[in-house]
């Protein structure tokens, strides 16, 4: 009986930690100052929040209900596959729209300088520049 009590305590701990991390990640959305910084909250803190919640779920259903816990594993897998990809795409589109960043940001990427980037669509890395510039007209804004 005591093991169950301890286990429930551990599960509650994980649930609370998960909630706290998810909350902090969302807080980052309001707290951080520019688009690129806000990107960090959802990709990291939220991963941890969901991870803790899933661990709690695995413990509960695995030990107390003694069911197999494959679904939580799958959710974790999907999360690890999708989170960085979506963050990368968001960052890419942010660069493409040349969203402003806070002044203390160091480093001046050419993607954000207006004079070097035309209005050409970005070609696939494997195909290089020439392939698209001759065939496709630049996109109109």
């Amino acid at each position, binding site marked *: 009986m005591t093991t169950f009590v301890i286990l429930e305590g551990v599960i509650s701990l994980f649930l609370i930690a998960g909630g706290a*991390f998810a909350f*902090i*990640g969302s*807080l*980052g959305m309001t*707290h*951080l100052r*520019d688009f*690129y*910084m806000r*990107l*960090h*909250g959802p*990709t*990291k*803190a939220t*991963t*941890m929040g969901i991870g803790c919640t899933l661990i709690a779920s695995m413990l509960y259903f695995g030990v107390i209900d003694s069911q*197999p816990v*494959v*679904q939580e594993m*799958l959710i974790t897998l999907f999360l*690890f596959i999708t*989170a*960085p*990809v979506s*963050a*990368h795409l968001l*960052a*890419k589109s*942010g*660069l493409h729209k040349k969203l402003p*960043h*806070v002044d*203390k*940001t*160091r*480093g*001046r*990427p050419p*993607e*954000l300088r207006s004079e070097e980037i035309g209005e050409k669509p*970005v*070609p696939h*890395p*494997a195909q*290089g*520049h020439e392939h698209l510039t001759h065939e496709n007209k630049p996109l109109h804004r």
Partner: protein
Amino acid sequence: MITPRSWLPIPLLSLLLLVVWLLMVRSLAVGHLLLGSVLAVIIPLFTYRFWDVQPRVKKPGLLLRFILRVLGDIIVANFQVAWLIINPWQRSSPHFVEYPLMLEERFTITLLANTISLTPGTVSANLRLDGKTLLIHALNVEDEDALIAEIQDRYERPLKEIYEC
């Protein structure tokens, strides 16, 4: 790109889809087997154009160690980013870092970019057109060169050893 050979362009993906489907519905009933098989045939047919040929894993042991290290780093990353967000006296100095890539194959570059996004304070923002540099946005960086050296040591070199040479 994978050339369409037959109605099962990527057999491994089809098998994976079927297994994942059965795990998701948690049953082995005939109906689910059928539905899963249909999905396992249809989805690769629609998506094989996006798939690249994967390089062979040359050192599986190293890959396992790499995954464990990344998992550990993800936990550390979470605490760091959470602390940066809630710390009221924060002096974060965001930074755009240009990272010179050693890796050459697109699959390994993808893996590296994803790893960078998941680990401490960095999001990979843009892969340059020439495929030689990666633009990284870092949340709090004092020394650009130290960050580059760390990524090279911890992630890029193991990946290169695992897949490329």
